[in-house]
């Protein structure tokens, strides 16, 4: 069972009901649950979208797109039904925040979905969980059934004329399905390959209808935005980055766990104070700031780095999914790069050639390199390959594989050079990776 952690610097908004038994609907209601929904029904869609816009809430899946703006793109009139789709296919290595949301506060996901539905004029919402999260799917299914029983879901939501239904769905193991258009394909019972854009999901989405797709953490934040009011929620975070974020500290950190901290919180402080520093008092070598697809940062780059979309972007990386992976000085970066690219090679759906071939060749090159059979030219080739994948694929998976690789090669070129000419790396024990 995932262990809850806490730190005095945390600002508990999304996590405030964690560990309080809020998976039980009565407890959730007792703790103020579904009050935001009531308020939204009374105030109407336009008011909801304005609150969302003023909250500065940006997509927690990684792209950081303003949620209110996304909702406002959905056409008011549509011949086809509109849908809300909650992305709980959480698969980015280093990321396990949604895991806790589904476990401890499933009704917040339902309430957020319903508010999104009200705002865009949808009657149906889908909550899609990755297949591995079966026990969490069962928690969500129970929460949905309880909400129907209480008259919260269904024809006349809380006695109003608003109708809303929620359908839960299980995936079956595919990182790519976390991409919004691939997620829609999967939900339609197909292979999870991405669709070309435009048209964007807000216009042509699930079953051809206008669709809003939000990350589970984004959706779970919505009821809190409403209860606090947009401006108050925005004030918690940093400039243009409203609210808090569920940061997942993992890797070589003394106290790993999910911590809810204000947007813009200093990364160095997060590792050394919140996380208790590098495990065993070792030295920090590098940090992956937002899930494995985000370019690595060096210790000197995190000194004054605030963790929000804009500041991390300016530092040459991405806030991504908020999964902070701490790497100590005993780690071989070539092995780390190899393990990272192996994942993307495994998960590439094969739809576009630059991604399918690029990830595979990067994996081959890095495997050879790590085994001590690399050449000087390989380093440049790895960089060349990765650069040529960037921006040349249907979906961001190609970039997600190329970006971190470029980061490793550029920032740790010396370590790559040390591996040359049969000099095996001093730290790693594992040459061959079994996952194919």
């Amino acid at each position, binding site marked *: 069972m995932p262990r809850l952690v806490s730190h005095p610097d945390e600002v508990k908004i999304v996590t405030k009901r964690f560990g309080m038994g809020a998976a039980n609907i009565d407890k959730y209601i007792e703790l103020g649950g579904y009050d935001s929904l009531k308020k939204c029904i009374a105030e109407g869609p336009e008011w909801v979208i304005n609150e969302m816009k003023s909250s500065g809430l940006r997509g927690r899946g990684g792209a950081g797109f303003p949620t209110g703006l996304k909702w406002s793109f959905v056409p008011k009139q549509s011949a086809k039904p509109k849908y809300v789709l909650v992305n709980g296919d959480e698969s980015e290595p280093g990321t396990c925040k949604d895991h806790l949301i589904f476990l401890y506060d499933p009704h917040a996901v339902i309430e957020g979905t319903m508010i999104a539905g009200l705002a865009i004029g949808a009657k149906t919402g889908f909550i899609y969980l990755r297949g591995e999260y079966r026990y969490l799917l069962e928690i969500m299914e129970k929460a949905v059934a309880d909400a129907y029983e209480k008259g919260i879901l269904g024809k006349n939501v809380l006695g109003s004329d608003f109708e809303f239904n929620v359908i839960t769905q299980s995936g079956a193991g*595919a990182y790519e399905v976390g991409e919004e258009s691939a997620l829609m394909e999967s939900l339609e019972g197909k292979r999870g390959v991405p669709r070309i854009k435009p048209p964007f999901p807000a216009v042509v989405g699930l079953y051809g209808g206008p669709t809003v797709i939000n990350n589970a953490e984004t959706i779970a934040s919505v009821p809190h935005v409403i209860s606090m009011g947009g401006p108050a929620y925005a004030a918690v975070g940093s400039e243009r980055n409203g609210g808090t974020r569920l940061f997942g500290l*993992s890797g070589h950190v003394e106290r790993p766990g999910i911590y809810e901290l204000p947007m813009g919180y200093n990364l160095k402080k997060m590792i050394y104070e919140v996380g208790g520093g590098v495990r065993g008092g070792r030295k920090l070598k590098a940090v992956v700031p937002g899930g494995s697809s985000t370019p690595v940062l060096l210790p000197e780059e995190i000194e004054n780095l605030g963790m929000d979309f804009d500041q991390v972007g300016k530092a040459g990386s991405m806030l991504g999914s908020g999964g902070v992976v701490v790497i100590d000085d005993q780690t071989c970066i070539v092995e780390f790069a190899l393990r990272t690219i192996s*994942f993307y090679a495994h998960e590439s759906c094969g739809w576009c050639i630059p991604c399918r071939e690029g990830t595979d060749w990067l994996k081959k090159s890095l495997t050879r390199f790590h085994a001590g059979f690399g050449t000087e030219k390989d380093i440049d080739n790895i960089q060349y390959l990765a650069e040529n994948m960037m921006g040349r694929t249907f979906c961001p998976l190609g970039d997600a594989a190329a970006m971190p690789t470029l980061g490793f090669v550029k920032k740790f070129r010396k370590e790559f050079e040390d591996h040359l000419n049969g000099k095996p790396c001093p730290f790693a024990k594992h040459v061959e990776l079994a996952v194919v």
Partner: protein
Amino acid sequence: MSPNGSNTETMSIFSPALSARFDTLVAKYPVKRSALIPMLLYAQDEVGYLSDAVIAEVAERIGITQLDVRNVATYYSMLRFKPAGKFNIQVCTNISCMLRGAYELYERFQDELHIGHKGVTPDGVFSLEEVECIGVCCWAPAIQVNYAFHDELTPNDVPKILAEYKGKAGNSGANGSVKNA
């Protein structure tokens, strides 16, 4: 569950409970086909893998070709076409787990079970798999045994975990279905 007793149900290879669940599933979505992926997963949970018979019946229930079912099923890494052990041990070795000793853990499982990646023990009780991120990064290293998570492990935890599941296998007989552990 659904009161509809269809023809497929009477000759179904699935248990009555699962058949009833499928009837509900296909009626739940705006498009029948949306039930496909969960159906395959639930069928696999009961039968152990996607046998030809499973694929044939799922295709018929949804109203698509078997080829279409296979085309979709081969995309998803949790779906398999060969039986696994009664308890499928999935060890995550992705970055967060790797940094906290996932390979040492995985090696211990290999040593104890004398099988490698995607291997099955001769008694059919265990199978082993090295898997990608399972979403337990902050409590690494972690494994999944069927659907049950075990986290913050060390190689020394391996014998205890194996003994626990071996005990469960003994209680319900060998070669049973792969259910939630």
